[in-house]
């Protein structure tokens, strides 16, 4: 089973988000970078499927030249090939799907995995747009994958409003997955060494496409500036706590 996993380099956001002076990007001078937890799980899931059924994992990322760092992390986890779609500017979901389409059609992938949404832009659509370009079925938000005995289909399921929704898809297909589908492994030492030496294919991507939504500026929503009322220390605060619970109507 040959699998393509698409990942995105995003800043590691810790205590608070600060913006650049032009308010068009996150100030990343002080931050590290990572991929979304959903995508870490997508890589892990792909590696597990290949360990079980054979084949290879290719990982692709659209981003700045520095996204090589994230691709090498994925290689260390067990991917065997990496493609970097290099772009200078932030690119919208339509153009991203177009660029990933070129990678997805460069090999014969049985499965394309993405995160359910990128943790930064949160567009919730690249996987679906890619599937439509490929003319393949797609399911999103997946928390479990079971490959059919015939190897020609899989069942992908998720939880929705307290019920399990299962989708059966013929292969090849596209899935977007969510954190919780597995617990990703830590990279092994041999994995890290292999990742250092592995080649990364670089492909240039044209700039933002027309017809996308145009970001004009970013802002951090004002946190409701309220002063927490301290009800007290330790179990001495319990009567006051009961009072508050009664007041707000949960008791």
């Amino acid at each position: 089973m040959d699998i393509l996993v698409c990942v995105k380099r995003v800043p590691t956001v810790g205590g608070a988000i600060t913006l650049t002076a032009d308010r068009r990007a996150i100030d990343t001078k002080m931050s590290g970078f990572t991929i979304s937890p959903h995508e870490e799980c997508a890589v892990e899931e792909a590696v597990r499927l290949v360990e079980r059924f054979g084949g290879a994992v290719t990982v692709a990322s659209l981003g700045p030249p520095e996204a090589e760092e994230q691709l090498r992390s994925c290689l260390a986890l067990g991917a065997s090939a990496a493609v970097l779609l290099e772009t200078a500017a932030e690119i919208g979901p339509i153009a991203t799907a177009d660029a990933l389409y070129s990678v997805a059609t460069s090999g014969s992938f049985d499965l394309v995995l993405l995160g359910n949404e990128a943790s930064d832009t949160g567009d919730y659509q690249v996987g679906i747009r890619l599937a439509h370009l490929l003319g393949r079925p797609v399911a999103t938000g997946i928390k479990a994958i079971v490959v059919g005995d015939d190897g020609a289909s899989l069942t992908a399921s998720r939880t929705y409003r307290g019920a399990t929704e299962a989708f059966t898809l013929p292969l090849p297909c596209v899935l977007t997955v969510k954190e919780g589908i597995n617990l990703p492994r830590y990279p092994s030492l041999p994995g890290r060494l292999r990742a250092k030496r592995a080649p990364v294919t670089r492909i240039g991507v044209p700039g933002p496409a027309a017809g996308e939504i145009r970001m004009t500026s970013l802002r951090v929503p004002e946190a409701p500036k309220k002063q927490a009322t301290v009800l007290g220390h330790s179990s001495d605060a319990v009567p006051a706590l009961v009072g508050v619970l009664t007041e707000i109507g949960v008791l």
Partner: protein
Amino acid sequence: MTVYCLVELDGAGVADAALRALTFARGLADGQASQAGARLAAVVFGEPPEADLARYGVTDVIAMTGIDGYAPQAWARALAALLDAPVSAGPASDGPESGGPVSGGPVSGGPVSGGPVSGGPVSGGPVSGGPEPGNTSAGGPAPDRVPDGRVAVLAAATDRGNEVLAHLGAITGLPMAANCVAVSPAAGGGYALVRQRWAGLLLEEALLDSPVALLTVATDAVSAQTPDTPPAVSAEMSAAVAPTPAAWESAPARPESAREAPVVRRASASVSAADLVVRAVETPSGAGGASLATARVVVGGGRGVGSADGFAPLEELAALLGGVVGVSRVVTSEGWRPHSMQVGQTGTKITPDLYLACGISGAIQHIAGCSGAKYLIAINKDPSAPMMTRADYAVIGDLHEIIPALVQAIKDRTERD
């Protein structure tokens, strides 16, 4: 303009998230108050709860038939057909005084006068044509109802809403904006919108240069509200509407904004076999009880809980309060609780009346998941933890001491009563 809103059902009623999306959608349609022709059409796959929809001010209800269950691409295909032939406020193509749509026909008896506030709608039949092609305002719009060509398709930013609208974007080639918190028409025929990035930790202001907008509405963008002036209800609906209109009568009559009963139409979705390949088979999950996303009370536990066993008092408290337990990411990565209980950016976004966060420091990815709580109470040893400074109420101390004491106090109180 015409605003379509995909309305998800929850049992026989409208899902909470869909009520919020409808409220948001009505804001967009009403923002066009100068245009008497602005329509708000609820699109329902299944049997539409007409009374609920009427209360939320929809002018049209489109009941989609022909698709069994949830098939995201097929749902999107059906919405795409609506965009090809939008509901219009102009007369139907078969004549300016047309008494009904060409096909389908109204499910309810059409608007019937007799609403408690307004005198009800003027004519006895639906004024607009059906969603089928060839049934648009080809007969020429009425002079006071000039459609401006703007069309928006909205859905709640749930798993399904985002998924269906992304499919719709792919089918139509149009951009789709997920998790919007505000939208307004902009000069030049497009829209100015504000949407969430980073699960709401960051807001993006953006322009959409298209008269057709595909948007999902962040689940915490607005709270569900019925219009201040109630919709007029048709005779057969009024029986189903509760409470009785008594409450409405105290509201000042504002005939200029009085609403007509929605026109209900059935539309048969035309989909291909390929659209139906991916279709949900639903089974109730074993979990039972209230779900995290919709719980009214969530008791949260984080690193401070210390172990898998440490959750027992939190679970007891949650049960006493009629709520559920939610956890922070560290708890699921430690394997203390399953990921399905995780609150946060990559877990579940919660909107309870009360979030009682115990031993949770408050990483911003967690805050992103719980900022929709009406009241936030934090219990933590560290008074400077972000969760403590963000809370409405804070208790400083060890949760292992405080929670059992609280549980006992609630039990004592119950026994006294």
